[in-house]
């Protein structure tokens, strides 16, 4: 791998800018049967809470035009299980591991952060204040700039690893939230989480998801995500991890041009498990063909 692909997200050194989007890659074990996950720039694990969370009733998935709706509801076995059972496997991959931290109260978020503080093999924290699929916490925290700033400030005062804050698109002005959380201490931002959506089965007259509402992801939301990355990148001075609908090399490049320092692939993994490594290979060729020596020649280089 050429060093030309290397990027740095708030001190997290990545050999390339390709990451996995939280919740779409679990803790990597499943995908490691199909790809060499040590080739990834970094892995972002499924949202982790202080205690086990059971998640929402099924059906939790439905397909929509160029997208999917999900309502997983942060099902996970809690932070202790993650540290004891999942992390040892991840450590062996020798790539940065970023923990997506979720909760329904500020205390819960802080509890998770405290538990992972100083734990070997964790390179960063992604503060998930944007999950649309839980009744408490999640998106509620991320929609209001003041609330978002408050939780970020506290998280920052506790966290030992770099703090990435994950933003929700379900707001009027994402820049306002972005500015507030950067002001409050966020070292980096990742965006976007899924967009609130819904689908109905016209045969049964029932919602297609048991929770009625769910989070829309996949190529359908790419134009929305790209717009937000572009807007936020011109507003704040911290690195941005761009995501939302990336499913091929060209999509990833769009996000770099708009100002993302790294990108994460989510839903597209479900269709093509090899997509992350294919994009890494493609990106290397892309830079080479254009004589570009580093990602800096691509990031934010949209011509307007």
């Amino acid at each position, binding site marked *: 791998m050429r060093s030309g692909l290397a990027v740095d997200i708030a001190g997290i050194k990545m050999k390339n800018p390709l990451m996995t989007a939280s919740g779409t*890659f679990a803790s990597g074990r499943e995908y490691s*049967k199909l790809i060499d996950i040590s080739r990834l720039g970094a892995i972002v694990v499924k949202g982790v809470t202080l205690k086990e969370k059971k998640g929402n009733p099924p059906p939790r*998935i439905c*397909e929509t035009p160029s997208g999917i709706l*999900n309502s*997983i509801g942060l099902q996970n076995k809690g932070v202790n299980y993650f540290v004891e059972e999942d992390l040892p496997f991840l450590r062996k991959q020798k790539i940065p591991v970023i923990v997506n931290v979720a909760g329904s109260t500020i205390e819960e978020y802080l509890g998770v952060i405290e538990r992972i503080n100083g734990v070997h093999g964790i390179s960063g924290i992604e503060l998930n204040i944007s999950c649309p699929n839980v009744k408490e916490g999640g998106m509620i925290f991320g929609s209001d700039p003041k609330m978002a700033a408050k939780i970020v400030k506290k998280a920052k005062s506790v966290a030992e690893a770099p703090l990435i804050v994950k933003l929700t698109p379900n707001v009027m002005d994402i820049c306002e939230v972005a500015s507030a959380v950067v002001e409050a201490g966020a070292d980096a931002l990742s965006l976007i989480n899924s967009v609130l959506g819904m689908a109905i089965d016209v045969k049964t007259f029932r919602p297609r998801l048991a929770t009625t509402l769910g989070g829309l992801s*996949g190529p359908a939301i790419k134009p929305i995500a790209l717009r937000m990355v572009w807007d936020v990148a011109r507003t704040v001075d911290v690195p941005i991890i761009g995501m939302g609908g990336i499913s091929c090399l060209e999509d990833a490049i769009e996000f770099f041009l708009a100002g993302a320092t790294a990108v994460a692939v989510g839903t597209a*993994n479900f269709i093509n*498990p090899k997509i992350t490594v294919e994009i890494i290979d493609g990106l290397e060729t892309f830079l080479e063909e254009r004589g570009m020596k580093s990602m800096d020649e691509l990031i934010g280089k949209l011509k307007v």
Partner: protein
Amino acid sequence: MFEVKAEVIASKKITKDIYSIKILSPEISENAVPGQFVHLKCGEDKSFILRRPFSIHRVDGKTFELLFEVVGKGTRWLSEAKSHLTLDILGPIGRGFSIGDNLKSVMFVVGGMGVAPLVFLSDQLIKRKVKLYVAIGATTKDRLLYFMDLKRISYKIFVSTDDGTCGQKGFVTDLLNNALNTVKPEQIYACGPRAVLRKTAEISKELKIPCEVSMVERMACGIGACLGCACKTKGKTNGDFEYKRVCVDGPVFDAEEVVWS
């Protein structure tokens, strides 16, 4: 589990909206056990459509078969797949049926398309000389798939159709109690709509016959990563529950483990 590009060897229309397709893949065919499934990319290269899960219906050497019903765009596309087309397939996936070492007799409870994985299972049971009973139901006579084959290999077969065009009128579970008065299988395997599985679970619990059910749920990744395919199961302590993954913790579950409510 493998990701393979595998060639379609043959494809056949069985009856209205029901097709079978034969695929060449040594990796999948030689590693599959009955009850497992494959996760298949439907549609042309660039179209964004989730993979679709299909039970492994039959295995023959380096090839395996799927049996499927056209219900939407994925299955429609698959029904038009011609020989030599290359498919992108993940498989074999999941926990299959468990076959006890000294198993002597079993009963299948089959609802509609549920027959798909049970044909593969029957092939293995017959090899082991397990005595087979079958309770099979469908909406109507034409949808009683593999009826003659199952009749031939089974010791006794019980039939129902929703419209009474063949066997008893009603659901397959309606005749299950009666059937289990006359035959005494050591094990039940059920595959079909949720209502059939649920009722079968009840009956087998009452009669204390071990029962395995093959669950169906919407899937995204199909490999255990997304937690999309939740099946409510009993937790470790009483009254507690846990959502397990149909794709890798199942699709076959012990009927007692499933929380049906």
